[in-house]
């Protein structure tokens, strides 16, 4: 902000009206295209957007088209086969299983992560004394800093760390459990047993994300004026009641954004699986669509079919986002009626 005053611009604002009109009109008339203006638009908008279209938008569009072909990438041509890829896809039990796994994860991971994150954020912000001002816990920045650690560790490394922790014989988890006297876990394969694999994997994702969303919710809660909490307390609302009826509705937009971010991540989950369950897990219980797509494209070379999987993944992602918006609107509408 200091640049404003230092640049001598403030004097320009109070320039004589004649000067203002002269330059101002040259500036705002769109027909009057100077060299400055043309190069400006060219470099500032046309080049970046062209670059963006070439590398992001056009691949998306091409994928939609390729999904209607039998292209294998190395064949010189491709045949237009309509929706047969999609028909094949919805008869492919492995892909359907992967889709089911993804959908389960897109429900469990956001709900648990955001629930825990919100719980911790509430503890940090209003866990202090009820005397005087509403205040947070002492030394809460310690908890924030520590919880946030996993966010700066690449997801692939988080996966590798946990695959070692889950290791049946040398892993930390079974070491702790057997030390506690639970001998049945002596060489239990958490990632190799169809009953536990998907929960073990989801736990890793949640472990990695809770701190990030906790920090986010803390910031959002701090943005609520203190008087709101004071008023709630004077009205006799306890901590729990305050959290449910005051805090969450007031930061609803943040929660919605968080749900969408984390849902997109859970529908992908590729990187975690690449580290924890590269083969799809026991009985494919942790197989995700992204893994199927990757193998179909880059191992089997069935590019048309892989693109159809991509389209299905995109449609599910958009449907998920739409669902989150709809749920938020539903609850938003309800609370407004209640007020």
């Amino acid at each position, binding site marked *: 902000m200091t640049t404003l005053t230092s640049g001598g611009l403030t004097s320009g604002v109070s*320039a004589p009206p004649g000067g203002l009109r002269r330059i101002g009109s040259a500036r705002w008339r769109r027909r009057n295209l100077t060299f400055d203006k043309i190069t400006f638009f060219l470099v500032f908008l046309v080049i970046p957007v062209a670059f963006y279209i070439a590398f992001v938008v056009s691949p998306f569009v091409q994928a939609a088209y390729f999904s209607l072909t039998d292209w294998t990438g190395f064949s010189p041509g491709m045949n237009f086969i309509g929706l047969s890829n999609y028909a094949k896809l919805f008869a492919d039990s492995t892909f359907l299983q992967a889709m089911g796994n993804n959908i389960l994860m897109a429900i469990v991971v956001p709900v648990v992560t955001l629930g825990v994150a919100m719980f911790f954020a509430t503890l940090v912000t209003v866990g202090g004394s009820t005397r005087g001002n509403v205040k947070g816990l002492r030394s809460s920045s310690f908890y924030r800093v520590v919880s946030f650690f996993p966010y700066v560790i690449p997801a692939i490394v988080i996966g590798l760390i946990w695959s070692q922790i889950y290791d049946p014989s040398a892993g*930390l988890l079974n070491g702790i459990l057997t030390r506690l006297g639970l001998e049945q876990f002596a060489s239990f394969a958490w990632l190799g047993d169809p009953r536990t694999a998907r929960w073990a994997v989801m736990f890793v994702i949640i472990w990695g994300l809770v701190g990030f969303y906790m920090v986010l919710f803390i910031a959002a809660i701090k943005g609520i004026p203190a008087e709101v909490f004071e008023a709630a307390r004077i009205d006799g609302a306890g901590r729990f009641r305050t959290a449910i009826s005051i805090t969450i509705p007031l930061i609803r937009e943040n929660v919605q954004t968080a749900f969408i971010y984390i849902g997109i991540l859970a529908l992908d989950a590729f990187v975690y699986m690449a580290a924890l369950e590269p083969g799809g897990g026991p009985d494919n219980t942790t197989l995700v669509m992204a893994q199927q797509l990757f193998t179909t494209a880059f191992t089997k070379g069935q590019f048309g079919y892989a693109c159809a999987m991509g389209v299905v993944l995109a449609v599910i992602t958009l449907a998920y986002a739409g669902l989150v918006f709809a749920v938020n609107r539903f609850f938003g509408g309800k609370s407004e009626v209640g007020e």
Partner: protein
Amino acid sequence: MTQISQGAAPVAPAGERVPFEPAESGEAPGTAGDKAVTGFSHTVLIIWSFLVIIPLIWVLMSSFKTSSEIFASPFALPERWSFDNYVNAWTTAGIGSFFLNSVIVVVGALILTMFFGSMSAYVLARFSFPGSRALYYLMLAGLTFPIFLAIVPLFFVLRGIGLLNTLPGLILTYAAFAFPFTVFFLYAFFRSLSKSIAEAAAVDGAGEWRTFFQIMLPMAKPGLATVAILNFVGLWNQFLLPIALNTNPDNYVLTQAMASFASQAGYSVDFGALFAAVVITVVPVLIIYLIFQRQLQGSVSAGVSK
């Protein structure tokens, strides 16, 4: 506006520092119920902190053990604290050169996307012209559609221009996929900067170029810092783009090198080196994080509260 500038400054909300301020030291003790709640809160959060820290400490400890020690007991301290594993990870896995590749790709992409993103965001925020609405939706699509949808055609786009399996190819792709987020974030930021300032610059005779580089860009510094930090973390952690588009082992970036090293370590049963590689990967980032944690957390909250 206020949210963003607050967020970009070191956030450390005032409430948290309260216990250290003298005014609070004479605070009356809370009720018994308060104490119970406070005690409960601390207990829960301490348990969680352990859950976060213990795995990391365990990795650090294991990185000094030999493979047979690792298999003997997950708890036992290493017989002797040797750096053999680190030497192995550094030389056989070549972590150093992959680290360098990551730095080159991420910094290159960051510069490119920050330039393009800030320029486009500025134009979109300042001027209304036919098609600006369409551009907005184009950006939104790039933000919400999964990269997986684009990955196959992208492979052939890069192959077509001869940049498949090269670092410049990765830089361009990284920058392109970070572009819509950058534009969205900075769009809101430039919107919030007063229009009269740009007009004043024009009055003083500054052209569009000068107005942007000498006036608007310096004013947008807090927003630029925020979005740069978020982009950096996102690109540093990127995994899918490199494993699909950069399969030449010499050009591996750190994340994919780690994945391939892990599968090799599985065959050669050199878990000590794997742990050491994890430590080498995590520690620099963790140190940077501890130094900049206030800014980073501020950026995260600003990124979502806009």
